[in-house]
């Protein structure tokens, strides 16, 4: 009965003071939205990052550190120290432990986007996220030597569609003076956005890449030695080397054995990495800032809770008469104190509910735009246990903050005489 009375009184009192308290709740709502949003995006981005490549068991490249190999083969950052001979690739393909392999050849660029030479096995075996395969937004995969498939961001930024003709540049960098003008490529398809580095890459066949480099052995085109597209289609364009190979293992338990075998390959120095582990290591390097961001938003919530306490304490002066009436009617100091606790917790609960609604609405509105414009895939999902814990800590902190005005009200009303003015 007393609890119900306290609840009715507290809610009526909140509603009575809604004008002042709405502003405090707004501050609190925004800070909780920020805190929850940061945690939500943090785990989403980590999830997206660590599954930039999935389904691939090993990445094989020339001997180097795992992070370096990961950076150039998956993120197209930096360059390979060396290439892998094609004969090695062929030997790997014969290994019974290997289910499939995807050769990748890097080095050229298109308007600053990396050109990746590969073969049809890329479309068949490459996976990202939760085992998602690549989808074409338009057109089809390359079938001709001079076909090219564009990543979503490349197509969007350069406004390309199937059928467009593009000229690749020799080497990396966004402004290259050496272009493969003799052999323009035709856009055969555009990939759907994935939120991975695939969006920022240009895919051609290994043969196409080989063809445009005939006559470029010295690093520049030698006049008369380069091929016309018609000549190229007649030639055997088997590459002499590739940059990296994605490997799918037949039986997963053999992954480590195979990794060791490749690292000890006798014909040339190779490295094999497990992409999941390398991605986690890389995230540990990059992921420090997001933890700091979370701490900062945590402090923002604490700041607004302190603001809430300040408002409650300021309101306390106005409530002396009301407390005197309740006390004179027989309310105990405990009941008076409980009003402050209930009011503060109710405010934080309202802020939490509003923050959830605001966050959900924001994600629904911004999600598709983020994917289209920045290739960041963030959708609505149920909150995980950490996020619920963070959310629940807000009313708990509210309760702790309310203890100060509540204790003041409790001891004050014990010593208050009849009437509010004593």
């Amino acid at each position, binding site marked *: *009965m*007393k609890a119900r*009375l306290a609840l009715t*009184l507290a809610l*009526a*009192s909140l*509603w*009575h*003071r809604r004008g002042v308290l709405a502003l405090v709740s707004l501050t609190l709502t925004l800070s909780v939205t920020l805190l929850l949003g940061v945690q939500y995006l943090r785990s989403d981005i980590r999830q997206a990052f660590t599954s930039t490549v999935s389904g691939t068991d090993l990445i094989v490249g020339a001997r180097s550190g795992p992070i370096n190999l990961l950076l150039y083969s998956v993120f197209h950052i930096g360059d390979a120290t060396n290439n892998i001979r094609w004969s090695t690739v062929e030997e790997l393909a014969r290994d019974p432990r290997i289910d499939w392999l995807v050769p990748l050849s890097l080095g050229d660029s298109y308007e600053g986007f990396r050109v990746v030479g590969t073969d049809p096995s890329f479309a068949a075996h490459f996976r990202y996220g939760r085992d998602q395969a690549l989808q074409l937004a338009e057109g089809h995969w390359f079938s001709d030597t001079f076909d090219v498939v564009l990543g979503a961001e490349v197509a969007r930024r350069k406004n390309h569609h199937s059928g467009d003709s593009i000229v690749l540049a020799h080497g990396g960098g966004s402004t290259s003076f050496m272009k493969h003008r003799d052999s323009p490529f035709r856009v055969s398809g555009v990939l759907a956005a994935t939120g991975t580095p695939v969006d920022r890459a240009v895919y051609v066949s290994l043969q196409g890449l080989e063809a445009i480099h005939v006559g470029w052995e010295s690093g520049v085109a030698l006049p008369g030695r380069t091929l016309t597209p018609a000549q190229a289609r007649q030639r055997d364009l088997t590459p002499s080397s590739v940059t990296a190979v994605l490997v799918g293992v037949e039986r997963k338990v053999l992954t480590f054995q195979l990794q060791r075998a490749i690292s000890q390959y006798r014909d040339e120095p190779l490295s094999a990495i497990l992409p999941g582990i390398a991605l986690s290591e890389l995230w540990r390097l990059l992921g420090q800032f997001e933890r700091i961001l979370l701490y900062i938003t945590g402090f923002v919530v604490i700041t607004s809770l302190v603001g809430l306490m300040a408002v409650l304490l300021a309101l306390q002066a106005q409530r002396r*008469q*009301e407390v*005197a*009436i*309740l*006390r*004179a*009617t*027989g*309310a*105990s*100091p405990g009941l008076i104190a409980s009003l402050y606790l209930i009011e503060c917790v109710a405010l934080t609960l309202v802020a939490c509910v509003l923050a959830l609604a605001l966050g959900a609405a924001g994600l629904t509105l911004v999600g598709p735009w983020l994917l289209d414009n920045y290739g960041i895939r963030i959708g609505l999902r149920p909150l995980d246990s950490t996020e619920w814990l963070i959310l629940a800590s807000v009313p708990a902190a509210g309760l702790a903050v309310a203890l100060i005005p509540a204790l003041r009200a409790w001891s004050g009303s*014990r010593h*208050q*005489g*009849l*009437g*509010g003015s*004593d």
Partner: protein
Amino acid sequence: MTGPAHLPGQATQSTATALQSRNLGFRWGRQQPLLTFPDLHLQTGEHLFLHGPSGSGKSTLLSLLAGLQQPTTGELMMLGEDVSHRASGDRDRFRADHLGVIFQQFNLVPYLTPLANVLLPTRLSPLRRQRATPTPTAEAASLLGALAIAEDHWQRPVSQLSIGQQQRVAAARALTGAPEIILADEPTSALDADNRDRFIELLLTLAKARHTSVIFVSHDLGLAHHFHHQVCLEART
């Protein structure tokens, strides 16, 4: 100027005694002087007029009677029980069960409707809820009606009520659940003469019907004739 207001009646029947105090004294702080009060004695159903200039300790005495403060010296018997040596929780419960209080002004909880204000004692005390007949809401309605608060005012924000109406709602709250004693701290000081007399008449009539004693504090000696007894507190310098 002490006016010992002892009644000629027999003080032996403790059940019929609403209030009896002996050598009451109170000190607000260690360095403060001791305030002493004349002995009081009141039979149930009888009304007492407490009169004194400002600073004479009227409000302090009411705080002691209400059980909001514990007397430093002396003892206070209410309804045959010694309430002066009880724990504060017990005094709160005793106040909820047996006392009604009316202040000088600002009597109503601002965020409750007039009706909810009247019902407050029955929500705080099971005894008062039981005594409110036939039901708390019905009793509150009849009290508000008797105190001339129009029904369309019952659910309005209390800030829309005139001061006279607010004081009458406060009287209804004090009377709800038929408490034995009502403490009224200058409830008419903010009212004009017409309203004042009407207020006192209504309060005393309704109190009489419930056998409720009213202890009425005022500096206005012109009101003394409404009451059976009067006590004057001396001015302190």
